[in-house]
């Protein structure tokens, strides 16, 4: 069965979704990722969806779930690389994206995560 690789870069876990996701794969990604956050003490999760030609309510819900699960484990999630046609479609579909942080590309996503991580470190020192 296909598996989505989870890469570790410093405190960040990077996931690049490159296959047309079927439902079982989406569920196994949630399981793998939460396990890796705990194992690797990750503080941030970056999900690159630039290869996804479509985001439907199932994938949208999965992204929201991952963000919420990571948050519960003390890690922030940023979704990057959404294609313009996908952005237009999910707005018409009515997909709620309020709980999902996004950035244009991986570079900006890393910057967003780093500044969020710095903020939370400062809060911890105080």
């Amino acid at each position: 069965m296909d598996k989505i690789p989870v890469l570790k870069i410093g405190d960040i876990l990077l996931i690049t979704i490159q296959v047309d996701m079927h439902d079982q794969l989406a569920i196994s990604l949630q399981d793998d990722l939460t396990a890796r956050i705990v194992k690797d003490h990750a503080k941030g999760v970056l999900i690159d969806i630039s290869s996804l030609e479509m985001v439907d309510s199932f994938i949208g819900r999965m992204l929201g779930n991952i963000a919420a699960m990571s948050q519960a484990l003390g890690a922030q999630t940023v979704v990057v690389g959404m294609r313009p046609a996908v952005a237009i479609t999910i707005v018409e579909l009515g997909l709620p994206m309020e709980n999902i942080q996004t950035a244009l590309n991986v570079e900006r996503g890393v910057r967003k995560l780093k500044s969020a991580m710095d903020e939370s470190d400062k809060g911890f020192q105080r």
Partner: protein
Amino acid sequence: MNQPEPETVDLKTGEDIVSARKKVRTGMIELGFTLIDQTKMVTAASELARNTIDYGKGGTMRIEHLVNGERIGIRLIFLDHGPGIPDIQQALKDGFTTGSGLGLGLGGSKRLVNEFEIRSEPGKGTQVTVTRWR
């Protein structure tokens, strides 16, 4: 333009949703739809195919290429013989679900297509027909 015979895809598992999406994408590319139109229709197909499997207990999707003079379109017909939908107006409302999803499938896919028709009979099944014109 040559008009292929309508094709029917079985919808039983999650992987069938992926093949249904691919078939719709290929058909739309053949018919010369824009990338945004393709994305909308493929997304609608994904929502409706999942409904057919989750709520209709499986069924089929039929793809029809519509080439009628200057008018070019694509039509998808989702058919199941599941329990049916007792209250269609309620089912079309965003956020309404009897399952575990977001309740966007029917209402959301209706917004992504040009024509949307739903027929359902409790105990007999549901048929959803969606059309997008180029």
